[in-house]
């Protein structure tokens, strides 16, 4: 190890405790991707602007590129890999994204999904305008967003408790 300052930390990711020794300057995104092999968290700008690396920290959407790994100790982290309930099932948002062609290259998709998980938890019955506002910090170059909005509306309906 050629890094002068390192720490041994425990990260709680997708319900599992994972121990790593990391340089103190390493971003959480890099730690997730390289130390834990969770490469579904994508880096599109490393300045917090594109939203691709968005993860959930204690249920709140955060930019993994703007956090250090050492800052995440003691918090519950959910990445895209932790969204689906099982290997044979998908989260309603994931199902709706596939049905509505809400992903093309799929690079921005993990960050959109995590952002929307938090959003639909807070706003279970959103308007189209509210959805657009909620994802206005997530850049997508492929879709033009309309299919993402449509998928989110459908997923919101699926997630709401049935009367």
């Amino acid at each position, binding site marked *: 190890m*050629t890094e002068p300052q390192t720490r041994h930390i425990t990260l709680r990711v997708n319900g599992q405790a994972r121990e790593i020794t990391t340089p103190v300057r390493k971003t959480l995104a890099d730690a997730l*991707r390289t130390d834990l092999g969770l*490469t579904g968290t994508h880096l599109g700008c490393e300045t917090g602007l594109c939203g691709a690396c968005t993860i959930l920290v204690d249920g709140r959407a955060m930019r993994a590129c703007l956090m250090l790994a050492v800052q995440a100790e003691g918090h519950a982290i959910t990445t895209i890999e932790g969204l689906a309930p099982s290997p044979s099932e998908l989260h309603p948002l994931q199902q709706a994204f596939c049905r509505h062609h809400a992903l093309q290259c799929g690079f921005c998709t993990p960050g959109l999904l995590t952002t929307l998980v938090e959003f639909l938890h807070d706003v279970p019955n959103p308007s189209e305008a509210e959805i657009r506002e909620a994802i206005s910090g997530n850049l997508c170059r492929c879709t033009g967003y309309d299919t993402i909005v449509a998928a989110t509306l459908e997923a919101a309906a699926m997630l709401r408790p049935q009367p």
Partner: protein
Amino acid sequence: MTKTGFPDARVLGQDVPRLEDAKLIRGQGRFVDDIAPPGLLHAAFLRSPHAHAAITAIDTSQALALPGVHAVHTLDDLAPHLADTRLVVAMPSPSYRLDLHRPVLARHEVVHVGEPIACVIADSRYIAEDAAALIEVEYDILPVVTDCEAALQDGAPTAHRNAASNLVAEMTIAYGAVEDAFATAAHRVHEKLWIHRGGSHSMECRGLVAIPDPVEDRLTVWSSTQMPHAARRLLCDIIGLHERQLRVVTPDLGGGFGPKLIFYPEDVVITLAARLLARPVKWIEDRREHFISTTQERDQAWDVEMATDAEGRIQAVRGVLIHDHGAWTARGVNVPQGAVSAMPLAYVVPAFRMQIRAAATNKVPVTPVRGAGQPQGVFAMERLLDAAARAIGIDRAEIRRRNLVPADRMPYETPIRTRGGLPVTLDSGDYPACQAMTLQGADWAGFEARRATARAAGRYRGIGLANYVEATGRGPFEHVSIRIEPSGRIFVATGAAAMGQGTATMLAQIVAEQLGADMSNVVVTTGDTEAAPTGLGGSNSRQAVMAGSSAHAAATRLRDRVLDIAGELMEVAPADLEIVGRAVQLKGVPQMRRTLAEIARAVAGQAGFVLPGQSGPGLAAAEELVIDAMTYANGTAVAEVEIDIETGEIAVAHLVFGHDCGRAMHPRLVEGQLMGGIAHGLGNALFEFMAYDDTAQPLTTTLAEYLLMTATEMPRVTILHMESPSPLNALGIKGVGEAGVIPIGAAVASAIDDALSDFAIKIDRLPISPVDLLARLDQAVGG
């Protein structure tokens, strides 16, 4: 218009689930940065901070001494291992006046901010960047060329200190009696336009991972390239390897949009570094590097005139295009050539002469971004038509209707030639009907009532339109092979490269249509030099047309072969058999069947035993169908805008996009391509601006400064379809990857003109920012 699609098809023309989604939706894609072999080292580049400077010294000693650093490479270090220290990639053209082949690394002169000078290989990217900052380079600053028009004026400094001028290339595209037409025309209009386009900004930046295999003395290079076979050829040439020593694979791509088809200095440096160190080496471009080193489109200055008769029929078009080429020739003159060639295509233009002058500047090299010059050519043509309509006093839609190439003249051979010298022949379509459909969809006729309502509320509403014709499906061929293996699975391999559009799904549909219609039984491999012997990759909206046509031909042949063999095995006539799912069955008697696995095993051969029947060995077919002529897609965009004259805000209220890309193999994928293109076009029209200061220092190097479309900026979009199957390929398809972007800037400009007609404001540049518009308004109201 009715959509016919593939009415008898089982999967073609259907919105089947994408094969790509199962992994991508779970974050289990395999993008280049996800590849991390054991022993991986990481690279960072030292890049020029100056737009133009002489390098007098490079000292890497401190960087090399940093713990964790394995190598620091300058051009002097790499040159002994290179057949050429330059990337000679310029496509052929007689138009070049300067040879601007960029170096693998800059050594004596840097000519744009971001040009790579040295590469550090270290244990981590963090350490590599630390070390790059320790490299000492001494520069002598040289005069800078920032503007393409100024670059061509007498006495301008040169972007390369030893170049005689900045004129990289010049050519004239001309036919007909232009001067005579202008001399006798009833109306002449003149426009001076400045058109900017920015970068591609795929959400995934570039990158590569080079993995040496010492056992076999070969390298695997995972690269975010749209053209893996071209990359292999160039890498083999420059590093001195033969084709079996180098495999180039494109993993999942996080978008391409043009610049990923270019061959870059980093491709050579990383591949060679891995070979020299005998360790895997990864370089992943960060977004700042993307702004200053990935090729982009940028500035064009158009000075154009149109002559019409008294009724507005075009007699001639002429003018000059000055094109910002950037500092090096990273591809060719195809962007300005494509721009000018696209200009007249939708219309009957009897005489045409456009001069192209490409100017070297001290900026990032210019190469195609989605649309590849065509949006600019369309912008110029449509601005002229609006001006002519005003001069004559007729409706903007009507002047277009009078000039569009009519359906009864298809195929319509123009005197224009493609870059390869082939005639540009519009193969099919009904352009006037497409315009009429779009106008109706946008309620063009009822607009004045909406304008009046808006005006009553103090808002300025306008409507505008633009037509385009897009050259798609550039040949000459694409490779597709299909094998049915003894597992019964169908394996498709192609030289086409997927960039995220759903290429694998599209090819699987074509193949499955002939071979059982079970999409889950088809495995598609794209963009891998090991899987396909040759390939031209992704560009020019070509993959559905070229790879799709080869896939169709190969699948049809293989289907016949499967049925022949099954007929022999089952002792029935092949005509009485059909492939359903993973088996061949007797029509109407599904219990009489042989699985594809059984058939494949029957002809797999066993040493010493004869094959059954007359069938010959194996179940495979490969095709490289040659289609030289391009197929031309077309469309019309109508934009309706509202402008706040206090703030300059331009809100697009509704965008109607009517188009014809022939038969749609997957309507939802087609719409996805169009919507992405439309969003990109709106960005180009209103937001995206790659800014430089007057020393050619880039001013927009983050996504906070360079504005991409967000969800809140997207207007209501209506897409309307027409279907004129191309006669040039069996499936009747035309490309659609770039169409969406092409007419948007022109339509939005037309709408802004219309909204602000009280102020006589004419949009003559893109993008149009609120700040620009306010300045124009201030001017107009006598400021």
